[in-house]
């Protein structure tokens, strides 16, 4: 089962979340990452996500499978956009269903943290002043010239 996928078109969460339905699930926690208009004090105009697609898919799937094994959840899914995104666009969605809310929240938080830490996806921010740059995991700029 593929619990993680990349998408080069806008995410349709209504469809994604149906995979989480379960009569025994009393709790659903979700996280969405939206494109912000600012980062580290600079005005952001848009951004591009680039992925090493084959490895992103397998690493993302490994994270979701690990989450289902580690936490008392019924199902978990994640979709990450690639390509060019505008302010307010949905960049990543994580959804988790569980019998109880503790597990739903914990697994959801763990998944987004691991996705940001491990999945080979890179964010290139384009600033209002015309500059652009690849970012580090902590959203500070990569400086490859030093």
């Amino acid at each position, binding site marked *: 089962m593929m619990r993680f996928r990349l998408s080069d078109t806008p995410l349709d969460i209504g469809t994604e979340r149906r995979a989480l339905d379960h009569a025994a699930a009393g709790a659903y926690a979700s996280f969405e*990452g939206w494109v912000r208009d600012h980062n580290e004090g600079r005005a952001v105009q848009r951004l591009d*996500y*680039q*992925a*090493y697609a*084959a*490895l*992103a898919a*397998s*690493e993302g799937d490994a994270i979701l499978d690990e989450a289902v094994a580690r936490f008392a959840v019924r199902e978990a899914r994640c979709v*990450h956009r690639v390509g060019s995104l505008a302010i307010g666009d949905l*960049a*990543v969605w994580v959804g988790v269903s569980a019998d109880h809310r503790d597990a739903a929240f914990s697994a959801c938080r763990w998944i*987004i943290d691991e*996705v*940001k*830490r*491990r*999945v*080979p*996806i*890179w*964010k*290139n921010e384009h600033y209002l002043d015309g500059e652009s740059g*690849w*970012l*580090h*995991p902590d*959203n500070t700029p*990569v*400086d*490859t*010239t*030093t």
Partner: protein
Amino acid sequence: MNFRLLYFASLADRAGRAEETRESAADTPRALYAEVASLHGFAFDRERLRVAVNGAFVGWDHALADRDEVVFLPPVSGG
């Protein structure tokens, strides 16, 4: 041996390309990175990168084989 290398994000910018094919005597990712870092002027210390061969993460002393696809991965920033 003949390797196919893919470059992403700042490494692609610095190399001026998204992929290349190289003849090299390097038998580990460690040796191959030293070679291409010098060639393209990559500024990342190797410790800050991860490496994947044929679509799976491997260690820096993994034994490379002819026609392997090798990718040096800068720190990721998805999410």
